[in-house]
């Protein structure tokens, strides 16, 4: 990380530059906050692969454990079936992760022929929306969503 304190500017620095440096540093810090988008894509991918694997094996209970609490409620609330039964109606072909986007505590994974949305909850990544189909203007209609 670049250091911007007064000492780093050295003795040659004029008084005017010492006034400018803190503002420039503050701007760099503000911009740096935007770099948090990198997040931890590997942890996100791993959670997505686990979810798809559970669906592939028909393990509804395992898939439901990987949902956020709100998403799990929406699955069981939308039908008369339990989450573990209803979730298996979602099919995703393939488990190759094609793209991962992580922005703070939210993520999107293009996996197989599907798209998942995840949130970072209680220290782990959980699926908040699954069975998503692209709709107009970058929006998604999801079979399961919190």
């Amino acid at each position, binding site marked *: 990380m670049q250091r911007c304190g007064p000492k780093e500017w050295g003795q040659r620095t004029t008084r005017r530059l010492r006034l400018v440096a803190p503002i420039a540093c503050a701007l760099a810090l*503000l911009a740096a906050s935007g770099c948090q988008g990198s997040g931890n894509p590997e942890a996100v991918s791993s959670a997505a692969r686990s979810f798809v694997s559970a669906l592939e094996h028909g393990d509804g209970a395992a898939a439901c454990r990987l949902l956020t609490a709100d998403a799990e409620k929406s699955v069981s609330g939308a039908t008369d079936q339990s989450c573990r039964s209803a979730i298996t109606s979602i099919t995703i072909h393939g488990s190759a992760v094609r793209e991962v986007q992580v922005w703070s505590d939210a993520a999107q994974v293009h996996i197989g022929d599907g798209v998942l949305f995840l949130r970072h909850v209680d220290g782990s990544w959980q699926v908040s929306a699954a069975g998503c189909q692209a709709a107009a*203007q970058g*929006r998604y209609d999801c079979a399961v969503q919190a």
Partner: protein
Amino acid sequence: MKRLGLFFRDNALTLAFLALLFAALVGQSVTGMVVFNDQQATSGGQPISWPQYLTSSAFAVDVAENWQSEYLQFALYIAATTWLVQRGSSESKKPEDVGRQSDETQKIGPYADERSPRWAKVGGWRTAVYGRSLGAIMAFFFLGSLLAQSVAGRAAYNHDQLTQYEDPVSWGGYLVSADFWARALQNWQSEFLAVASMAAFAIYLRQRGSPESKLVGAPHEATAQDS
């Protein structure tokens, strides 16, 4: 101790506003965190702590969008008042002084005196640069703040996009988005209003003792340099 007292007295304006800046930033960060956590609860996210909010893109974009507009205001104001006047305003030169003025008036090169800054005396590119340095540094911080706003704003925007099950956007996509320009323009309009108000109000209204005002007894038609 006496020197410290003199330092505070001689720099009171800068120090007072830096203190106000710090206090306002603390207030903004606390209230902003409350708003952010309300939105987190609505979107199924978890609340974050104050230190986490201080380093978040949501806080950064809110700070940067205001900073860029302030520096834009001063950059434009410094440049515009070289060429544009408001007759009778303490914020303006006299109409006959429009322009960059002569070297003699500006006390540069051979017309510099002993106490003139070195770069004002030496002539050439250094005097040319120094003669534009105030506007240039404001423009530099405007562009820097705008860049910071675009980077932090994209991060905050993409977070919101994902929580609403929508695709994130590229940096270029964010630069042409309504969110970026709505943030910029809502700040710019208020800055332009403030400048226009100050230029016009200063014709007829006075603030005794303030260098931002004409003398209380100065006539309305007198500009700052007349009064």
